[in-house]
């Protein structure tokens, strides 16, 4: 098992290296200069030259590339060209916002998707249950998250005025309260801040969660269909077990293996989904940060963000592979 993990980690290195190289060169192939983007209309010749020099962009590309890789090995992603913050610090501040969004939309997607999938599998071809549920799933699949997001904003934020229009709530505040132990000394403020964060989170989580729920429900439906046609299910039924036990004990657990794959996929899809969701809801987070960084040609920040995205996906895939063994004892890694 340990050997397997090590092997996977070793394989991840060239993958990460490849992703980092692609983003490095892709950013530089893009026309436009970070200094010009930063200074806009009022840039003077002198200021532009100064800026290019200060940012180290006057050096040959090969030098910049080697420098970038060497620093990244030491986990130093440099400073944001635009705002001067260390990239790692910036990402660390953005990450919690994206994490809560991904987690909460995962919850929404699982709560909607899995039951719909299971029910429509068990009631296959029932015109009253399966078909409507499958139509809902289809709707979710065909609705882009930004469209649903705008719709939710118009209804709940603009017309009903029950959810905030922009922002992510005071997550920074919540985290610092937890760090400094203030969460317990002033629980009222803490709860208010948590409430504020959740209040800001509801619509984005619903929008992203619902579009992802469609994928989850379709996959869990087919997983369930496959499982309930297996011999051991028939055996279980033949033994005279109650249907509830058959589904819970035998079918549901076996269904988890393909479902875990979905979770792996889910993280990748959700991360790309956050780019749109965060933009529509004007929420801080890695996705919005990445879009802004590319627009501003903020090379280190975009590179850092892509590196982190790649690492997350590699890590999640590895974890999912590990979990297979936990869920299905027949699977072992060597």
């Amino acid at each position, binding site marked *: 098992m340990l050997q397997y993990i090590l092997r996977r980690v070793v394989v991840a290195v060239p993958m990460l290296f490849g992703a980092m190289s692609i983003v490095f060169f892709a950013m530089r192939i893009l*026309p*436009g*200069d*970070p200094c*010009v*983007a*930063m*200074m*806009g209309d009022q*840039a*003077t*010749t002198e*200021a*532009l030259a100064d*800026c290019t020099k*200060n940012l180290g962009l006057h050096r040959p590309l090969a030098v910049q590339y080697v420098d970038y890789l060497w620093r990244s090995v030491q986990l130093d992603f440099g400073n944001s060209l*635009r*705002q*001067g*913050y260390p990239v790692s610090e910036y990402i660390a*501040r*953005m990450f919690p916002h994206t994490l809560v969004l991904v987690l909460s939309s995962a*919850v929404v997607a699982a*709560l*909607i998707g*899995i*039951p719909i999938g*299971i*029910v429509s599998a*068990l*009631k296959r071809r029932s015109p009253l249950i399966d078909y409507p549920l499958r139509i809902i799933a289809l709707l979710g699949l065909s609705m882009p998250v930004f469209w649903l997001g705008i719709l939710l904003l118009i209804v709940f*934020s*603009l017309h009903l005025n*029950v*959810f*905030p*229009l*922009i*922002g*992510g709530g005071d997550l*920074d505040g919540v985290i610092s309260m937890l760090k400094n132990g203030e969460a317990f000394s002033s629980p009222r403020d803490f709860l208010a*801040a948590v*409430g*504020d964060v*959740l*209040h800001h989170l*509801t619509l984005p*989580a619903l929008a992203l969660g619902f579009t992802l729920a469609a994928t989850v429900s379709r996959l869990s439906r087919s997983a369930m269909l496959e499982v309930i046609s297996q011999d051991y299910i028939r055996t279980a039924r033949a033994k005279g077990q*109650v*249907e*509830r036990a058959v*589904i819970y004990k035998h079918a549901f657990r076996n269904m988890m293996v393909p479902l875990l794959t979905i979770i792996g996929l889910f993280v990748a899809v959700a991360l790309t989904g956050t780019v749109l969701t965060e933009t529509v809801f*004007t*929420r*801080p987070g890695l996705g919005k*940060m990445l879009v*802004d960084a590319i*627009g*501003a*040609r903020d090379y280190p920040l975009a590179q850092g963000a892509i590196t982190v995205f790649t690492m997350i996906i590699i890590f999640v895939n590895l974890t999912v592979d590990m979990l297979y063994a936990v869920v299905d004892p027949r699977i072992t890694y060597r």
Partner: protein
Amino acid sequence: MPSLIRSRFTLLSVAALTALLTFGLVVLVDPPAADAQKKKILNVAAKEPETLDPHTSILGQTQAIKRFMYRGLTRFAIKDGKVTTAEVQPDLAESWTLSPDGTVWTFKLRKGVQFHKGFGELTAEDVKFSFERQINRVPGTRFGVNLEVIKSIEVVDPHTIQIVLKSFDAIFLLRMVGYQQGYIVSKKAVEKYGEQFKWNPVGTGPFYFERHSPREKIVLKAFDKYHAGRPQIDEVHWFDVPEDATKLIGLEKGTFDVLYPEAVTADFAGQVEKMGAVIDKRGPGQQERFYVNMTKPPFDDIRVRRAFMHAIDRKAIKETMYPGGLARLATSCVPPGYFGHIPMTFPEHDPEKAKKLLAEAGHPNGFTIKNYFISKSFFYPKVLTLAQEQLKKVGIIVELQVVEHATFHENIRKNLDPFVLYGGTRLPDADPWLSLFFDSKEIPDPATGNKGTNFAHYRAIDDLLVAGRLERDVKKRAAVYAEAQKRMERDLVCLPISDVAGQWARNPKRVSTPFDPDYGEFSLHYSYNYPEMLKVLN
């Protein structure tokens, strides 16, 4: 039974969703913002500044927020209930004198002015430091060029500073205004924070920096010890909202009180009016204009340049972009409100004359400009599409390549566009303005790496620019710049379209300003010159 499981799952998911929704609602009914009712908070929707060091950025939103935190030796005068950019008044300096030879300025600093966050009293050392870091081109600083007239700075005593100039400078007091190079920072704070001063700003302005949540908001708080008295507003929440549509929804909903739009269009103004908000218009604003590269065929032929100008219907473009009072039809290559401005005349809109001139110049069927680059941002694509249509009518076909703003800037400095659409604001005086756009030193050239902004490649007023800088007589100086404008009129190198006011939308039920929304408060940094005079009502 399967039905049991089914109902359990359904129940579970419905319950969870309801819980999530109810939680959201409960939080709303018991607003965590109970404090907000006590505090007077000004909610601003704008883009996020990239730094709060006042000497380093030229972006609109950054310049706008700086004025909340920093002040200079002088300020734009408040006269007859209006703010004018043509005159200055004392601010951090109480008074000043100029030596008879016009090269030594002595400023007496106001006593008892405090820096934010306990960084102590403002002294002459801070003033010297603020200017010298720019003159010495500390990395990142951008406005040193505006202080190059300074030869030396002497601290006479903690409250007196003497600035010796290389030669007389007609606009020196204008350079000392709290704007760009004129802002005074705390020497101690800059030395303490180094590079990170940009997010640990310390000035003497009415508001101090509290915190920054990147990509979300910046919080400023009222400075109790502000030398002109604590502002009425307790906190400023500066939200990062890139989209104008979102800003408008927020204004209507009450999430925001004032907004800094990317571009004020007729549609934007209409929506603002519909929701009962007002637009605060500020001169001199920015001018949108065309520069024609007189060195590149076919525009190296003055007849073709004249034909180009006859083809463009400036009034139609202005009215389409900014109907009625949203902008004024530009009258000169030096905008009104700038010292030295005189009205110029330009070839009137006449497509027939244009066609005739083109035929004379050897283009009876017109010509095609391939790969004309234009930014996809701000006013650029709209103005250019209108011009494209008008040019087409006389046979000049422009094939547009709409690109990112950064790419556009890159390409116009490579001289890829034979005529360039451009906008901008400078110190309101003909010298800095003409020096940037018509001095031969500013001709962009990819071969030398010069990224200047003399897109017309004009060389005919260099002598006047030198003469203007040395002239001490105000009238004679004005005459020099009048002559410069006449030469530009003769050579047809620039065609100004609209003088667009700096505009913010404001909810008057929430925020009041003492100045007339209609050009009552002139400013240079796209924002309120005196944000401390805004009042949050209820």
